[in-house]
């Protein structure tokens, strides 16, 4: 069966520090991968998506970047975090016409 993992589950980082969130998928090959951000009590904002290794599309210009070094690995990064980067980050993968989400990472920038 297909599973998706995200880590860390929670993270508290000071302003100006770097960020690296990791997402891995098991049980499927060449999935479409997605990073979303969810502000408290709000909907999901698509940040990045990838249709293959090294192929990244950005939806919103921002302080973040994404990379896909392996087929089933998707990384969200920042060189210097801002207070506005706080939120709940969700990774997702798509199989045919259904999309499945990881457990999420709660990021607090202080």
């Amino acid at each position, binding site marked *: 069966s297909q599973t998706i993992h995200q880590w860390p589950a929670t993270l508290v980082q000071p302003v100006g520090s770097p960020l690296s969130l990791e997402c891995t998928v098991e049980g499927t090959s060449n999935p479409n991968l997605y990073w979303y951000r969810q502000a408290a009590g*709000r909907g999901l904002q698509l940040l990045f998506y990838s249709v293959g290794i090294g192929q990244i599309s950005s939806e919103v210009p921002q302080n973040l970047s994404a990379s896909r070094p392996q087929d089933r690995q998707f990384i969200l990064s920042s060189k210097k975090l801002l207070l506005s980067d706080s939120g709940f980050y969700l990774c997702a993968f798509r199989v045919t016409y259904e999309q499945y989400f990881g*457990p999420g990472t709660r990021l607090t920038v202080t």
Partner: protein
Amino acid sequence: AQTVTQSQPEMSVQEAETVTLSCTYDTSENNYYLFWYKQPPSRQMILVIRQEAYKQQNATENRFSVNFQKAAKSFSLKISDSQLGDTAMYFCAFMKVNNDMRFGAGTRLTVKP
């Protein structure tokens, strides 16, 4: 651009009763997919139900069913025999074929004992 609108920020229902959550969307496409996701307090996003636009028959999954009105661009979710575990945020989502998924702002549903 496709937009998804959920006009009910919050709703509540008594346990064992039925509740309907509304969703409308805007698209010029003819072939697409619609989804309802549930996000409980754990914040894990769970796929509840999916509807293909080319299918006239409304999708059902146990106590969950949809009313898909393609001409009206409406996609409501009905939860029958509501249970306490149904308390969650519910998101409506739209996806064109081979394109990314767009979400509504969500409806917070509380099931009261």
